[in-house]
């Protein structure tokens, strides 16, 4: 089997892994070597599904001895198998990197023989790249659950980022669908990696130029929609992972049916892309907007509203806090306004130092008023001529896609709101947050 065949099989087997960013670390080239890392991350291409391609994302092998039900590489699946040699993979990475196709390597693997043996193979790839080719580009490597911590330690010193995939958001689901894995086998390496990363910040490492352990941090991934776990459960787990394990990112992956199993959604189930999208929006709110999971969902509302995004949904339920005056409120409050993001909030803060802002000024800053206009005032004044007709407001708060969906799915009785003339804040919150 040549490298072409192997790449075809092992890229195909890796494509469902979504954690493919190259961000989080700045580094210059080692002497006589090649490559740098840019903290902001660089996308080298976008695949036909619209996702960023930044790293050569492949498996070391898809010949896995485990039998996780949701996975194409499970032992019981009848599929062609391939395994890269460490040298082949290192050469491929360097060949792609020189041509500027990629930022680096994202290496994962099925379990070949056993977790320790697999990890040794991964270490060898990274060792070749870092030591022989003096490669300073980005490397993200998957820790194999169940591998010895001494091996994990060696792997972590060669990688920029490590991840252990949780895959399923609850222990029940794990028991049912991934019989070879346990909560313990996932959280133990996660905890170990967290502690080692923490050591990077201690003085000894800082001042002695000791190699850093996974300097770009740790991430994980969860599959959405393979199990009955709710958004509420997933978001709470996400929040506690950020807190307890200091994760850099939690990725969500809409389940693509790959296996016929009575335990899993039917093969013709569509991947829950909208749900995945809502979870990413909420994750963004946790990481950059100062929201807590409990503000976005609770016991009564376990799943996100499909028609409006989580921030809009929150705002509509807290109309008592609005309108906010853009010339007065703090940065944190600005971030709570639907339609105002981090960039806009920063620009507003900068611009209002030289004079108070009106609606025209906001536009010049590039602030999109479509949503924000209903939630803000400029020096006490609402936007002149603001149209609060029910249908207009709805159209503004929903994207064209959401609106289309709403018109199709909402009951005729609910549809009539488009004809009524005036929309009060209560109506708005009612019609947008009522049970769908």
């Amino acid at each position, binding site marked *: 089997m040549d490298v072409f065949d192997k790449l075809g099989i092992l890229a195909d087997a890796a494509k469902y892994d979504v954690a493919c960013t190259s961000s989080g670390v700045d580094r210059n080239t080692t002497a*006589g070597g090649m490559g740098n890392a840019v903290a902001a991350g660089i996308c080298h291409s976008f695949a036909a599904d619209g996702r960023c391609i930044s790293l050569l994302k492949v498996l070391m092998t898809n010949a896995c001895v485990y039998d996780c039900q949701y996975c194409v590489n499970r032992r019981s699946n009848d599929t062609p198998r391939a395994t890269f040699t460490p040298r082949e993979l290192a050469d491929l990475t360097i060949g792609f990197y020189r041509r500027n196709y990629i930022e680096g390597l994202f290496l994962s693997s099925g379990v070949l023989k056993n977790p320790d043996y697999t990890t040794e193979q991964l270490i060898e790839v990274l060792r070749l790249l870092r030591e022989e080719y003096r490669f300073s580009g980005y490397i993200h490597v998957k820790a194999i659950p169940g591998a010895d911590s001494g091996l994990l330690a060696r792997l972590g010193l060669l990688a920029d980022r490590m991840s252990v995939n949780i895959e399923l958001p609850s222990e029940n689901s794990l028991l049912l669908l991934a019989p070879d894995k346990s909560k313990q086998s996932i959280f133990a390496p996660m905890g170990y990696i967290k502690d080692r990363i923490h050591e990077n910040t201690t003085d000894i490492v800082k001042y002695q130029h000791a190699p850093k352990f996974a300097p770009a941090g740790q991430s994980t991934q969860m599959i959405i929609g393979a199990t009955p776990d709710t958004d509420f459960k997933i978001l709470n787990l996400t929040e506690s992972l950020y807190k307890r394990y200091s994760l850099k990112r939690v990725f969500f992956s809409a389940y693509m049916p790959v296996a016929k199993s009575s335990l899993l959604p039917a093969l013709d189930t569509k991947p829950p892309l909208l749900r995945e999208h809502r979870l990413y929006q909420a994750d963004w709110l946790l990481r950059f907007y100062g929201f807590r999971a409990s503000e976005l969902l609770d016991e009564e509302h376990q799943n996100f509203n499909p028609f409006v995004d989580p921030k809009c949904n929150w705002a509509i339920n807290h109309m008592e806090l609005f309108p906010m005056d853009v010339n007065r409120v703090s940065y944190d409050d600005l971030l709570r306004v639907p339609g105002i993001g981090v960039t806009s909030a920063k620009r507003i803060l900068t611009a209002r130092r030289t004079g108070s802002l009106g609606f025209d000024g906001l536009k010049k800053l590039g602030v999109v008023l479509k949503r924000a206009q209903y939630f803000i005032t400029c020096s006490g004044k609402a936007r002149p001529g603001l149209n609060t007709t029910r249908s207009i407001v709805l159209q503004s708060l929903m994207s064209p896609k959401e609106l289309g969906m709403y018109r199709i799915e909402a009951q005729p009785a609910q549809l009539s709101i488009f004809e009524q003339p005036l929309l009060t804040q209560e109506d708005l919150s009612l019609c947008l947050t009522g049970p769908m």
Partner: protein
Amino acid sequence: MPDRSDVIYQYDGSFDGLLCCVFESYDKKEIPADVLAPGQHQAMLFAVKNIVTDEQRAGRVLASIPTKMGGLALDFVRHAFLTCLPQKEIYILLFLRLGYQHGPCVMNMLADDVVSTLFKAVTHLKRESHLLKGFVRFSVVNNALTAEIEPKNCVLPLLMDHFCDRYPEESFLIHDKTHGMALIYQPHRHAIIPIDALQLPEPDEEELAFRQLWRLFYDTIAIEGRYNPKCRMSHMPKRYWKYMTEFGQPQELIPKLGDQVKRLSFNIL
């Protein structure tokens, strides 16, 4: 502040030349209706004044910018000069006049027409150069890396540090075909030079193999169930595809050798 007068400046297209226009504007207490680069013609019937580039005058203006309005403003103006904004010259001149008047806080006046127009143009430049850090595709032949781009903005100065950092031990060339410039690097020297036609060397077997491997990877990695060409297009506008390996056909990727082949040589430095 003087009104815009009915005079138009013509300069030599250099940054120093533009600074001399600023000098002239203060010296004569006038604000030109427009500033034209060589080869540009005015639509209005105003008098055209030819501004001669004078190093000393340019130097005086240059030195005054960081002291009067801060280093950030100078960086900003340098970047603005690289953008593809129509009439960028007059906007830069007006920006500098605002800067002399208001000081460093000119950088915060985002609601002002001139400032916001230039900010948008600079954002566009930075976005394009960031995209190209990813989208540039090198061919490796005879151990030298070569690439072609057709950017809207003059991005080479913004790409320089990044690529020199990335490939310190390689020799590489990036040809900006829009502006007829090339960034050339040999360990450890670099230069941006004007260049018109350039024939890139023919790819060898190894190069062709890597192109095919990359296309295989590119086609494999997309998930069919999530096919979303609109999303791809918004992240990676079609005008960049022309030089990207993943969209070329194998035969198209072999450059034809013309008669007047100007062989690529790295001995220009």
